[in-house]
């Protein structure tokens, strides 16, 4: 068992072999293998409770695996389902927080300049001095994205970051993520339970089931077929699909 967290071994991507995690009697991750290539957006689909967040938390170093033969992850930043902004710091300080800890990138013109520049990229430079509680849900989530990006991580982990937002806000968040990816080329590992979100954003879509990566698709071939395949792999029957389409 080796628990290495180095950039060299995987050159900034993610490489995991034989990862297991157990909560009580429940084996949530069962010898999982995972590869995320540098610069790609990889979406991870899985039903609720399938262990997606558990995987993200282990990749982020927030939880320890019970066993893993090999776990190599570059530097990470995380955007969670909730924005998790510190309400007692103005917006720009929240972004600059990612420039404070160990392994933070150097800034040329000080943390405030770097933070405001990144806020500008998510369209919120004018809210730099506001309190987080004055922001809407979508705005707060964009600040969380800016905080993660300003860290310049090898891998950006996104754990259902848009699931709490309304449909319109979600669409503009998708556009924002695509724009940011085109610009920064960060490796992104996007956890979602939304097939359409996965197809729209990712280069590759993985399916987590029974504690392992059960299927992997490149987003290439006809999308409606991919959609149908993914539904099947998530264990959603025709019956369930027609019921959800009123």
């Amino acid at each position, binding site marked *: 068992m080796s628990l290495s967290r180095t950039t060299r071994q995987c050159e900034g991507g993610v490489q995991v072999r034989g990862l297991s995690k157990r909560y009580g009697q429940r084996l949530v991750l069962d010898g999982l293998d995972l590869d995320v290539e540098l610069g790609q957006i990889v979406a991870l689909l899985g039903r609720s409770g399938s262990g997606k967040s558990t995987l993200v938390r282990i990749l982020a170093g927030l939880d320890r695996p019970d066993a893993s033969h090999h776990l190599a992850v570059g530097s990470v930043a995380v955007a969670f389902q909730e924005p998790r902004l*510190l309400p007692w710091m103005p917006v720009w300080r929240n972004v600059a927080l990612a420039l404070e800890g160990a392994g933070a990138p150097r800034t040329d013109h000080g943390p405030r300049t770097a933070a405001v520049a990144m806020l500008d990229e998510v369209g919120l430079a004018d809210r730099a001095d506001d309190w987080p*509680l004055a922001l809407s849900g979508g705005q707060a989530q964009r600040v969380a994205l800016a905080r993660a990006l300003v860290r310049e991580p090898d891998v950006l982990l996104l754990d259902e970051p848009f699931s709490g937002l309304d449909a319109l806000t979600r669409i503009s968040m998708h556009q924002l993520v695509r724009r940011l990816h085109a610009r920064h080329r960060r490796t992104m590992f996007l956890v979602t339970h939304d097939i359409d979100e996965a197809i729209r954003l990712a280069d590759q879509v993985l399916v987590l089931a029974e504690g392992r990566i059960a299927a992997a698709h490149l987003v290439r071939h006809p999308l409606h077929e991919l959609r149908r395949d993914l539904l099947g792999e998530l264990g959603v029957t025709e019956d369930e699909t027609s019921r959800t389409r009123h």
Partner: protein
Amino acid sequence: MRRWASTLAVIVLWQLVAALELLPPAVLPGPITLLRSAAAMVVDGSLPGALAISLARVLAGSAVGIVLGLLLGLVAGLWRVGEDLVDRPVQMLRTIPFTALTPLLILWFGLGEAPKIALIVIATVVPVYLNTFSGVRAVDPKLVEVATVYRLSARQRAVLVLLPGALAPVLVGLRYALGLAWIAVIVAETVNPSAGVGHLLTTARTYVRTDIMLICVAVYAALGLLTDTLVRLVETRLLRWRAPALPAATRRM
């Protein structure tokens, strides 16, 4: 104005009682007599002098007690080992009515400033500790995880995340502490008088100067009120992020 009507009525009634000498002045001097005495005490410097000494004691004692309470609360809140080491002794200290310690402190520290300051330290350290400890423990673990993800140092985690997150309860503790600090200084200065408002009070009792005694009581009340107001001001300033003014036109994103 209406809210002050009853207060005014009481004062007028009180002055009437005094003027008609329904009660002997040694028991209850009237408000006008009190004002005159107070003015005399200000002019001869006895009141400001005593006030300065008591205030200095409260400041010194509560400064030490508050810093100590914060540190102990952080240590116990941050580390299990810290909790094991710190919590039990402070919880035991909490159950002791601190006023009961006065004679012991005099025995240990003599008759000077030390026992008075020590009593104030003991009185203030407990509420600050209790509120810091529980406040730190109650900080949203999801926010603490953000500190972990961005690999903040222990100091950064404490200063940027845990203390601000615990600030509301810490300030409640601070208010309690300053209230208790005034009680502690009164007890210390009356049991072991050497200058200060408490000394003024005990001397006045010896000479049956009810007017001076009442003035001292009023001064204590005013000081308590003043510190409370100060902490409230600090509170609104430090916690203003809790109720930010929303932008006039709330945009969709």
